[in-house]
């Protein structure tokens, strides 16, 4: 099965895909921004401040999704001894980190008009900050350790350890009394958010997912060329 994951097989696709993904991302983002900033209604309590949700929530979702993928790929790299898993994980991490930072900063901006403070040490915010630290450690470890085998081991351990924090972030609003509201969107039951807000949120999430795919493809191509550069040195 893993023969399809071999870099030689997928480089032909990953090297051509970014321009199409970029084009699609620009279209979806333009629609998303129009919906989020102009067409969607204001909230009866938060007024127009609610529009920050359209960048804050997708950024938080995607940073959590990417970190979960890092952990799964790290387990895969340990179990199947497939180095391509760690290469994929390494290429996913930068966009995950940026989305984490966006979630923290936009959350802080949103906090000021709604809670009256830029920052609070509540469970959700603190656990998101811890996730950012894990992302930071993960990215730093790839830079610090020159020996590839050692770098794979250390980064995989960081990703697997950091994954413990993912369910804590998810359930923090249920387990502790936090400033954050309980979840409004649930794929298994009814949503407490109106369709007029859910649609722009979905479009912005799609745009953010396309952006992370774009960065992943570019980063993955960079990593593959790095490997091939080393290969030319050995010729």
């Amino acid at each position, binding site marked *: 099965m893993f023969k399809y994951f071999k870099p*030689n097989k997928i480089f032909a696709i990953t090297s051509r895909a970014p321009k199409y993904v970029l084009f699609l991302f620009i279209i979806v983002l333009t629609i998303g921004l129009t919906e989020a900033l102009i067409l969607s209604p204001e909230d009866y309590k938060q*007024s*127009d401040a609610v*529009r920050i949700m359209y*960048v804050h929530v997708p950024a938080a979702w995607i940073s959590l999704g990417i970190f979960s993928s890092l952990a799964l790929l790290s387990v895969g790299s340990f179990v199947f001894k497939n180095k391509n898993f760690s290469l994929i994980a390494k290429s996913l991490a930068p966009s995950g980190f940026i989305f984490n*930072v966006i979630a923290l900063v936009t959350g802080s901006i949103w906090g000021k*008009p709604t809670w009256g403070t830029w920052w609070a040490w509540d469970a959700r915010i603190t656990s998101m900050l811890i996730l950012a630290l894990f992302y930071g450690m993960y990215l730093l470890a790839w830079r610090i350790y020159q020996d590839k085998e050692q770098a794979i081991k250390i980064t995989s351990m960081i990703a697997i350890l950091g994954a413990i924090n993912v369910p804590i972030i998810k359930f923090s609003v249920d387990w502790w009394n936090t400033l954050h509201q309980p979840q409004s969107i649930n794929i298994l039951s009814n949503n407490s958010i109106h369709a007029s807000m859910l649609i722009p949120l979905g479009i912005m999430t799609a745009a953010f997912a396309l952006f992370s795919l774009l960065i992943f493809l570019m980063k993955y191509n960079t990593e593959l060329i790095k490997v*091939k*550069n080393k290969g030319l040195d050995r010729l």
Partner: protein
Amino acid sequence: MINEIISMNGYGTYVWSAFAFTLISFATLYFVTKLQLSKEQKRFVSKFGSLDVEKAKAARLQNINREILSNTSKI
């Protein structure tokens, strides 16, 4: 209409700064990643150019190397 969109009922500073921060972060990450990719592609081409005929022939046998070279000619 335009004024309403800009002021956002008094929340304009917060809303626009959140969106601006997001878009600036996107642009920065995109250009940094693009720069890194183009740097590696250039390094590959320069290394490939310095190979002797036999080694270059051997390297060209790999699909991925041919793919990198064909993509690099477009940048």
